[in-house]
């Protein structure tokens, strides 16, 4: 007590006081540092609530601005050093955009039942370009760009949307619910954010396997509100899982603007709360995206821990073909982003200024892409639907006798009453043996 009172009167020795007051083992602790389990801060006599409004938001990492110029003082982006990759990324974004337009229109014409576009968020192609093709991807539904960058053929997108006999999902999924083992892309699952704890679990498995790969998990600003998101981030951190979480913050969850979705500083602020290294990036700047993805991947694998990337972007299209966003946002807002700030337009400006692209190339490339897409589209539309008997397979690893019986009963019925089922002519023959 004497020592304490002496030291207390000598301000210069306050540091020493902290050192000296480390409790010897067995003795009750002194009041200098909080001893609560897991505590790592100090005591204070200043009563200050942390007011979130007093903090400027986490800054947005950006290298190339809206005019397509490298920002003053910005380092040369890695992606910009690879002309071929730049052009490939750009053309892939164009292809995604054009395919989206054609498939969206086809839904309006009643040719497919449903569709979701990636308008305004094509930059995700650059994010995928920085990954290892074997990194396992769990996504939400607006990440077709990742599959396209990984080389999934055009026709497979359309076959899935048409649920025809070449559909990778055998007619069991709504359109845009792609999946491809070959491309390390887990089949899209509708319930929101369920892919997030799954991604943490898969990353845990990868850690166990020591395969030098990471897991990448995409989710939206709305999905981040799900309970699953909290659990996924928390688990990834506590179990030290090599998973890169990528949040596409595009401003809207169907009609819910982010101002109604959360009160905090977006999703990025939640990362550090869970103990996860985090960065916020301009999702419409492909160069910045490529850079952060590379770095995040490195971090995941060298430190064996999760990372969080919040890519800020804007959803130019409707949520889906079941949505009309003019009901909840202004035409002015939309046309600003459409004209000035989206991944395609900004990259185009950069490439043109570099002398790597021209208006002629733009026109010619778009024409070629459109022709290619329309050709594949026509082919997909003509293909027959799968054999209806496929409805019964893959429920379990092996078809149980009772289900087989149901399948045989159905087959016999359809064969006997074909005249009552005219639509069967659009399907592969029932008699085909699997």
């Amino acid at each position, binding site marked *: 007590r004497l020592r304490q009172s002496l030291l207390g009167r000598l301000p210069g020795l306050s540091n020493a006081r902290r050192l000296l007051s480390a409790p010897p083992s067995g003795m009750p602790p002194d009041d200098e540092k909080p001893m609560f389990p897991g505590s790592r801060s100090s005591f204070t006599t200043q009563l200050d609530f942390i007011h979130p409004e007093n903090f400027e938001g986490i800054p947005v990492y950006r290298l190339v601005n809206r005019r397509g110029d490298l920002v003053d003082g910005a380092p040369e982006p890695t992606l910009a050093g690879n002309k071929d990759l730049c052009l490939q990324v750009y053309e892939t974004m164009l292809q995604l955009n054009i395919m989206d337009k054609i498939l969206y229109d086809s839904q309006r014409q009643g040719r497919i039942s449903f569709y979701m576009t990636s308008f305004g968020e094509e930059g995700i192609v650059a994010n995928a370009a920085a990954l290892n093709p074997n990194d*396992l991807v*769990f996504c939400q539904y607006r990440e077709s760009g990742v599959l396209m960058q990984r080389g999934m053929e055009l026709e497979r997108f359309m076959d899935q949307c048409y649920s025809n006999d070449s*559909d*990778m*999902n*055998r007619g*069991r*999924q709504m359109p845009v*619910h792609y*999946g*491809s*083992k070959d491309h390390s892309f*887990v*089949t899209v*699952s*509708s*319930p929101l954010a*369920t892919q*997030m*704890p*799954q*991604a*943490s*679990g*898969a*990353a*845990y*498995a*990868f850690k*166990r*396997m020591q395969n030098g790969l990471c*897991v990448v998990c995409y989710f939206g600003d709305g999905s981040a509100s799900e*309970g*699953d998101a*909290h*659990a*996924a981030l*928390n*688990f990834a951190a*506590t*179990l030290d899982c090599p998973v890169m979480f990528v949040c596409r913050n595009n401003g809207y969850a169907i009609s819910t603007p982010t101002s109604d979705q959360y009160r905090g500083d977006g999703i990025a602020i939640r990362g550090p709360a869970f103990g996860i290294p985090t960065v916020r990036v301009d999702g419409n700047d492909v160069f910045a995206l490529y850079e952060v993805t590379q770095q995040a991947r490195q971090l995941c694998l060298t430190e064996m821990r999760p990372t969080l990337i919040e890519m800020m972007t804007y959803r130019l299209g409707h949520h889906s073909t079941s949505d009309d966003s003019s009901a909840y946002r202004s035409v002015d807002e939309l046309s600003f982003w459409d004209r000035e700030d989206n991944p395609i337009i900004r990259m185009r400006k950069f490439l043109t200024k570099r002398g790597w692209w021209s208006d002629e190339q733009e026109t010619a490339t778009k024409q070629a892409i459109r022709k290619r897409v329309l050709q594949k589209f026509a082919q997909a539309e003509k293909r027959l639907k799968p054999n209806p008997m496929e409805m019964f*397979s*893959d*429920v*379990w*690893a092996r078809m*149980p006798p*009772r*289900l087989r019986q149901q399948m045989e009963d159905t087959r016999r019925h359809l064969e006997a009453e074909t005249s009552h089922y005219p639509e069967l002519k659009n399907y592969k023959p029932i008699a085909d043996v699997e």
Partner: protein
Amino acid sequence: YLIPLSSSHYPVNQTTMHRPSLSACQLILRSFGRSGGNIVASRRFASSMNVRDALNSAMKEEIERDPNVFLMGEEVAQYEGAYKVSKGLWKLMGDKRVIDTPITEMGFAGLAVGAAMAGLRPICEFMTFNFSMQAIDHVINSAAKTYYMSAGDVKVPIVFRGPNGAAAGVAAQHSQDFASWYSHCPGLKVVSPWNSEDARGLLKAAIRDNDPVVCLENEMMYGVSFEVSPECESKDFLIPIGKAKIEIPGNHISLISYGKFVGLCVEAAAELAKEGIQCEVLNLRTLRPLDEEAIVKSVMKTHHVVTVESCWPQCGMGAEIAARIMESQAFDYLDAPLTRMTGADVPMPYAQALEAAALPQVADIVRVVRRTLNRAAK
């Protein structure tokens, strides 16, 4: 079909039936033997094992056998399991194979499914299946449906296990029987062991199965010991999923049940045997796929059937069994309608006497059998 409760059966000071009746059950087993009924036991038993140890040893052996198998759940590691089912496993296997999770069923079920999708074979423990409701989206939408919806691309070889149904005095949110809910879903397999042999064989089979399997145990059975055959102690002892077992053969009436209630059927059978009524006790063992063949065969033999479960009456297991019998040739062999004995159609009350009144008891089974066979009460 609901058993009317009369106060004469349930004096206010009656203690929980389960423990005293279970020791009677063990006596029954010893006198009837494994092959059951009126046949004198000829098989020798290797040893006695309780259900907890059966589950524990099954998990231990499977984790040792396959490097991809691991256990995760709340309190499973250092605490050795909320009900000590994973006793000793963490000490033996370490952090990589036995993992404690934060309290989020939604989170760890999702995580386990993801690990299975990436090639591991998790055993995901729910402290009770009541809490699985917080994770049920992952069990159904992430696990059960995924192989189908990905056309075979994504496999989910996971086991969800834990105690199911009523314990003693834990009230409505801790006492629900989920047999109906899970066996409803295509893509899942659902097993429900009764005794130690069931527990060992079914859990091992579930872990080795490539489909998602739900294993519904019962807390009240964990401490109960049963004689087990020498085969049961083998590291490769497996019980085929989808096959029921005749615990006691009989000619007069089929008692069809699963889990803890098989024990009550066995006790009722013993009591009824004294008056010359031969009950055939059919232990379903698997709820999905249901062993319809065994059910039909039994009913065709006995012409009378009573099902016993703790699910609520509407859309319970008894309802499914009744429908299957009607849809099969066994319908023409029935001499009386099926009676389904179920839990009372109320959330489980807490008070001991009320809880006892809300579940089928041995005396209820005996009375219903007599009624079905048109025998007057003794």
